[in-house]
């Protein structure tokens, strides 16, 4: 069935280094993707999104890359900080009003 999933359950990264979180999706018709960050005891927090007509989008210290050929999505965090420690989810969506289908999550641990 259709699914959105993650390759790495836990990523340990040194403070100041860059982090890369990966996500695979199986529905080739997917046209919209979002990355969320979830800190302990909180709800998912929007980070960045990308439409399928783009292959890269940049935000503040974050970049999302989309490779439609291999149905792969990644989130890059530049100069990772302790406050970046959280679980990161990719999610597949669509037009406004559509449900989000979440992947399994990757935990990022930032070492000082």
């Amino acid at each position, binding site marked *: 069935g259709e699914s959105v999933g993650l390759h790495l359950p836990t990523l340990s990264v040194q403070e100041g280094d860059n982090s890369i979180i990966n996500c695979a999706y199986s529905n080739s018709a997917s046209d*919209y993707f*979002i990355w*969320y960050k979830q800190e302990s*005891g*909180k*709800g*998912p*927090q*929007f980070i960045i*999104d990308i*439409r399928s007509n783009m292959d890269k989008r940049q935000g503040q210290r974050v970049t999302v890359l989309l490779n439609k050929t291999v149905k792969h999505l990644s989130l890059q965090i530049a100069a990772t900080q302790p406050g970046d420690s959280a679980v990161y*989810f990719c*999610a597949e*969506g*669509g*037009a*406004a*009003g*559509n*449900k*989000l*289908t*979440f*992947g*399994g*999550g990757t935990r990022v641990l930032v070492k000082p």
Partner: protein
Amino acid sequence: EPEVTQTPSHQVTQMGQEVILRCVPISNHLYFYWYRQILGQKVEFLVSFYNNEISEKSEIFDDQFSVERPDGSNFTLKIRSTKLEDSAMYFCAGENRGRGNIQYFGAGTRLSVL
């Protein structure tokens, strides 16, 4: 900055009891959602709500579940007869009609069914 607020933060109930989880979405949002997250698992869609109607629901959202937006502000999720497996974090989310499908989530209600 406006937020989605959910109450209570933690609800403990006995199996078979009814619970109502409450959400106050951001005022200019048009689409509303409930999701749940069983401990250690991914976030799962339950139901979406637009124009005072359910627009989509998942297999999880059976006849024990219902949603209401009774007064134009509060958005509630009711579970009529809770089961042990209903124990989870329940998240409310809202969305405006704008770019993309960005949903803003509340902090969640932890439901513990004993």
